[in-house]
């Protein structure tokens, strides 16, 4: 069996582009299914995808629905970290975000990326 691996997936696009919004969730879903620890980071318009009620509205052709992917990633232990200044700019609080989403700042993102096996940015 392989050694422990960790993947950080950064999301910077929102629901206005369903395909590029969904691809990071597909990658994260495949990673949790492969016993890889997953941390998803949401910055900029990516924050919109973890607003309550938004993920369920996004479905890119030929991909699993984003809402289903989000639930799968959470269920299989993936972490959801959301950029503090980005949510503040959008007048959001933790109550506006899906359950399990954690608001963090740049230092935490750096710590996650530097301790990861690899990182992907979308």
């Amino acid at each position, binding site marked *: 069996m392989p050694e422990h691996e960790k993947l950080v997936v950064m999301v910077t696009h929102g629901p206005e582009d369903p395909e590029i919004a969904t691809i990071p969730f597909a990658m994260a879903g495949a990673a949790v299914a492969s*016993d890889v620890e997953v941390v998803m980071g949401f910055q900029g318009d990516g924050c919109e995808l973890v607003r309550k009620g938004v993920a369920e509205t996004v479905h890119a052709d030929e991909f699993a629905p984003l809402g289903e992917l989000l639930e799968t990633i959470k269920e299989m232990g993936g972490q959801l970290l959301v950029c503090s200044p980005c949510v503040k700019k959008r007048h959001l609080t933790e109550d506006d975000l899906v359950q399990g989403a954690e608001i963090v700042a740049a230092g935490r993102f750096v710590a996650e990326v530097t301790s990861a096996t690899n990182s992907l940015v979308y």
Partner: protein
Amino acid sequence: MSETQIETAAVLDARGLLCPMPIVKTAKKMKELEPGQVLKLIATDRGSLADVPAWANSTGNELLERYEEGDAFVFFLRKGEEV
């Protein structure tokens, strides 16, 4: 079509599921099996052809056989040892 006679402990019908759900459902189903037991997976997502072998290889499971049956892809996966 194959004439394989592999004894299977479970069957997962993943027809109609899109990327990456076939391997997500496979990973969940495999957790219900004991090491050495075999899962038969049926999928229609063409991405499964590359996904399933890669998933098996990276997770310590063994792809015993695969074949096409109509518009579906059939895989036999033997569960590896738990870590």
